[in-house]
């Protein structure tokens, strides 16, 4: 990834059928209290300009073809951040008939179609706090380290 991608992150918001709580928090990140622009984050309106794709929602079947087109339209190097419990794990409707249950299903489809994505990030939350997005951006820029670790506990 080019060194300057860490300094200037152009973000494209891809709503694949989300309930809007995460989308409003994405807008909230740009507003004065959280101000993502101080990290060089700018919300852009066309996938052509995007470096980071903020994917919210459980990817409904109707939105699937357009999601794949949008990700394909972003120039390389491109990063996809799955936001919220719908994006990361499919949320409450992870197994209904009209969604493919979050980013895992999309990763398989992207591989089949040969659409290469340089990095995937996951930010759980329902909805994700604006600070959680800032934490993911800070992690991508290398300012903070990961706080979540997979644990295996044995009950005695």
């Amino acid at each position, binding site marked *: 990834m080019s060194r300057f991608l860490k300094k200037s992150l152009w973000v494209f918001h891809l709503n694949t059928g989300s309930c*809007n709580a995460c989308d409003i928090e994405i807008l909230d990140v740009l507003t004065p209290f959280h101000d993502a622009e101080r990290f060089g984050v700018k919300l852009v309106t066309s*996938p052509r300009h995007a470096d980071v794709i903020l994917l919210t929602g*459980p990817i409904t*079947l109707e939105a699937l073809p357009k999601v794949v087109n949008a990700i394909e339209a972003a120039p390389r190097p491109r990063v996809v951040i799955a936001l919220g419990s719908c994006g990361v794990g499919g949320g409450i409707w992870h197994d*209904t008939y009209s969604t493919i249950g979050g980013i895992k299903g999309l990763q398989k489809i992207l591989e089949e179609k040969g659409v290469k994505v340089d990095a995937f990030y996951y930010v759980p939350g329902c909805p994700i706090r604006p600070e959680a997005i800032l934490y993911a951006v800070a992690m991508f820029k290398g300012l903070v380290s990961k706080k979540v670790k997979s644990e295996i506990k044995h009950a005695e």
Partner: protein
Amino acid sequence: MLRNTSIIDKYVKLAESSNASLTVDGDTIHIVAKPEYIPGLAGKLFNEFKCVHRTCVATDERPLNGFFSLTHLFTDDSNGFYIALKTYLEGDKPRAPSIVDQVPAADWCEMEARDLVGIEFEGRSTYRLVLPPGWPSDVYPLRKDFQYDKRPSMLPVSEKITITEESSTVPVGPYHPALHEPEYFELYVEGEKVVDVKYRGFHVHRGIEKLGESRMTYQQVNFLAERICGICGFEHSTCYALAVEKAAKLDVPERAQFIRSIVLEVERLHSHLLWLGVAFHLVGYDAGFMHMWRIREKVMYLSEYLTGSRKTYGINLVGGVRKDINEEKKPKILETLDTLEKEFKELVSIAISVPQVKRRLTGTGILPREDAVKLGVEGPVARASGIDRDARRDLPYAAYKHVSFKVPVYTEGDNMARALVRVDEVFESISMIKQLLDQIPKGPIRLEEFDIPPGKIGIQVVEAPRGGDIHFVITGEGKPYRWRVRAPTYNNIPALKVMLRDQPLADAPLTIASIDPCFSCTDRVVVVKEDGSVLKLNLTGGVKL
């Protein structure tokens, strides 16, 4: 509240005229008639009795009584009645008469019934309204024999939308900066004047109603209802809880109703401030957007302080609430509301004075009063076009009977009127929260022991920031047998065709946003291609104006 019988006699005479049975249960009148009488009855209810057609519900009641049932829900706002006009249809391929000629607003809910439950409607143009492309045509998800997590084998992965040549087409969506939701409006323009609007595909159909009937229990459906829409989620979960409590006749402690009303009004504050900020952003006035959302951040902190989460509050359960508003929280709430009111008044007066904002909002996206009545639009869109209707006052629920408030009504029906309605409603909500906080009684906040008898019907309308959304619940064993949700944006979208016609293109995103569309509310239905050819819903065809 004693219902005076003169009103009920009017309905009784109506029912006898077409030998239908009528039962009154609380504030709900159930009329069961034969299918052939339905159009006549619906026409009388809509035109003579001036009832509002809210939606229609198709249910697969074969496990119960071997029939399909189709229920049209009306509300008589002036007298505070719910009217459920029900009819039974037998056979696996049920046929029902359409009421679109009498009630144009019933167009989309009939098409949803056709696709999800498979009821054929005679006497109208039918098109596929639900289900994503590539869905087999004879599989109906809301039938009881359909397994809720069976996905179609072939996933449509990419499709090119052919842009027709007659007049140049401007695709607005599915990923357009003005709509932060995947919606697809194809605007046919001559120069920069919008000639025709084609609306295709709500992409947020997540199969919520099927999920509510299969995997979820009564208490879990609350959390599902809250996530129908990320902006007015609490309205949906309150509406669901009230509908189930009405069906099971539970008397919820008064303090819980007060807490529900307070959080409902906090959510209205955050939703209206959000919309005003986005409207300023769409007109290019970004400083207004930033300042409006700076003010809104206090409301988000307030809702987190009251309920534990910024947006999906999660304090609503059937039978009450989970989290109490104790005494030492009151000063903080009142102080936040005062600073909010002062700053909001100041900012709105400045923003309205900006020449571009004033010129671009007034006179654009006009919805005349007759179209508004005919299409049955909801909430601020209706109140801006001169219809004085507000479910909080007409069909009081939760603790709204203890509160006095003014319903703002404007008559111009343009974007500025819709903005001013929302501005006035913010001030009303602030005064309402203060009144509720003064009168909140002591006592428990939740019913501990209760049981929900199966087979009961509960209908409830709650006034969301965008309009009245209605929940219809038939109770079942441990989980709802049928749960139907209709959100306000559902009726406001057809009104967009009237508003967008002959408008400059630059205002299209502003007008689309002016109905404050919440597609995730509306999106339990999907408009879809019919075997390849993109169906053209031209202005006259789709909705009879």
